[in-house]
């Protein structure tokens, strides 16, 4: 008896619950459609804000699916033509940019930095073995130095601002807060966009000026086989050794890739589709981290890593002994040239047999 009463009570409760639920759904639906008979079109659709209207006020899943898949729609009555409303590949681009590109790019630069520090700790500063001779020979012309520093100064400014934009949200934002980071990011982006085109000009001038001496020559590989930087004394080489030539060609290809993609990003109307901008962005970021990582080695060897190297780029001349030790074949060439007004030292003339060019 008691059991059957419990069952009836439970049934009543269920029935009441179901009725209230149906009532609630109906009231909500009526509110959304604006009509108690649920036959009217939804407000949004009567307003024309939802594209399509193919299925009336019923579920428009097909349209949303098409949108999600990147199909374009003709938005009649608007000035924007047939836009893609949801750009799904953007999610792939975002995850690539914030994922592997940031991770591996950051790691590459870190490894490069650690390698420079490690090299310095193991080998210290590479001194001029024979000491300074007191006699200098010309290494870089004014045009070479000016084009180098012009490109270098812009490269540094763009690297700093670019790295801020790329890694700032992970490295800086947690420290200074999101609002302050928004200010820094805006500043960096504006500077990057403004100075970028100048770098393109500087890079092209630099590549043209330096190309002649960076073409591979016979003897370049022997510099590597004889121990490169790790040999004491360093093996002879032409004006630039194979590492320097590789840096040039990396700059050539990666630099032009950065420049081309950067121009597309700076002037986005060049691109026909947004995917092209995303691709340009990935190329830009990828090439930039490679170039920045390599530039750390270049900067290290050109400044504190090798005694006497920097003055070539600041004053235009290098010590004869430095030239002989690091670029023996080139030194012999320069000192043997009748066009230079310097005295060739005997030791240089007697040293390393030069391979045919």
């Amino acid at each position: 008896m008691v059991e059957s009463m419990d069952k009836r009570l439970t049934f009543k409760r269920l029935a009441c619950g179901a009725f209230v639920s149906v009532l609630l759904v109906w009231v909500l639906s009526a509110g959304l459609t604006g009509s108690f008979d649920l036959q009217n079109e939804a407000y949004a659709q009567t307003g024309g804000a939802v594209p399509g209207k193919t299925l009336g006020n019923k579920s428009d899943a097909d349209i949303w699916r098409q949108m999600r898949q990147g199909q374009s729609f003709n938005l009649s009555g608007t000035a924007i033509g047939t836009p893609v409303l949801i750009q799904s590949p953007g999610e792939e681009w975002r995850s690539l940019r914030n994922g592997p590109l940031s991770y591996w790019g950051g790691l590459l630069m870190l490894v490069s930095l650690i390698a420079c520090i490690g090299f310095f700790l193991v080998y210290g500063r590479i001194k001029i073995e024979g000491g300074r001779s007191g006699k200098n020979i010309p290494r870089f012309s004014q045009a070479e130095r000016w084009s180098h520093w012009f490109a270098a100064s812009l490269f540094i400014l763009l690297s700093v601002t670019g790295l801020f934009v790329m890694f700032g949200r992970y490295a800086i934002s947690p420290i200074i807060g999101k609002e302050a980071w928004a200010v820094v990011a805006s500043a960096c982006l504006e500077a990057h966009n403004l100075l970028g085109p100048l770098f393109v000009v500087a890079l092209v001038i630099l590549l043209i000026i330096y190309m002649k001496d960076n073409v591979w020559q016979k003897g370049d590989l022997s510099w590597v086989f004889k121990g490169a930087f790790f040999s004491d004394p360093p093996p002879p080489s032409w004006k630039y050794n194979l590492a320097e030539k590789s840096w040039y060609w990396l700059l050539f290809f990666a630099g032009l890739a950065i420049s081309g993609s950067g121009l597309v990003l700076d002037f986005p109307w060049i691109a026909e589709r947004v995917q092209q901008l995303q691709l340009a962005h990935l190329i830009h970021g990828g090439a930039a981290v490679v170039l920045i990582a390599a530039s750390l080695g270049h900067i290290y060897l050109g400044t504190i890593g090798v005694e006497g190297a920097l003055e070539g780029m600041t004053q235009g001349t290098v010590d004869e002994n430095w030239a002989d030790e690091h670029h023996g074949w080139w030194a012999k060439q320069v000192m043997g040239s009748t066009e230079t007004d310097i005295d060739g030292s005997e030791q240089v003339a007697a040293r390393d047999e030069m391979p045919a060019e």
Partner: protein
Amino acid sequence: MFLDFVEGPLWVVACVVFIAGALWRIVGIVRFGRRPDISIPRASALVGAIKGQFLHFVPHGGFSFRTRYHLIAGYMFHLGLFVLLVYAAPHVLFLKENVVGFDWVALPRWGFILSAEFAFAGLILLWIRRISDPVMIKISDWDDHVASWLTFITMLTGCLALQESHDSLRAIHMLFVDLWLIYFPFSRLMHAVTFVFSRGYTGAFFGRRGVVP
């Protein structure tokens, strides 16, 4: 708050120092006078002085190769900066509201950006020459470097504020504008004014002797 300060009291102080300091320097130069010229006048010194103002805008033909680099870089910087300063829309608005009370036609954004590109390129190239040319290294002192860097930072902070969406960036730019104005009269930045006197003096000196200055 900081923006109010750099665009308010500090801006007024900077303008007063700029104008008073520049006038003080000009009066000082004029008061130097010049030694009596006892040469026989063969032509008009005044005409020579006027000629000198214009002829020195381009280098003497014999020096065209050696002066090409800083001639181009110099014009890029000075013209770029002038256009930027006078015709950039935010500057036109600021000058209208704070200095002259009227406005004029501003450059479109692309023109503004282009002039900034020229100004930046010119300034960087000139500074590189200053630190790498054997003669320039010897005749440059800390004043030249401070003036170059202060100008560069002022331009750079302006470039950082290009989006015009953060007051803090505008305030930083204005701070450096104020510092630049204060530094101007007491440094070689004064060459923006004194070049007229030096060209005039040289022009008059040679003009009186019948030589093209």
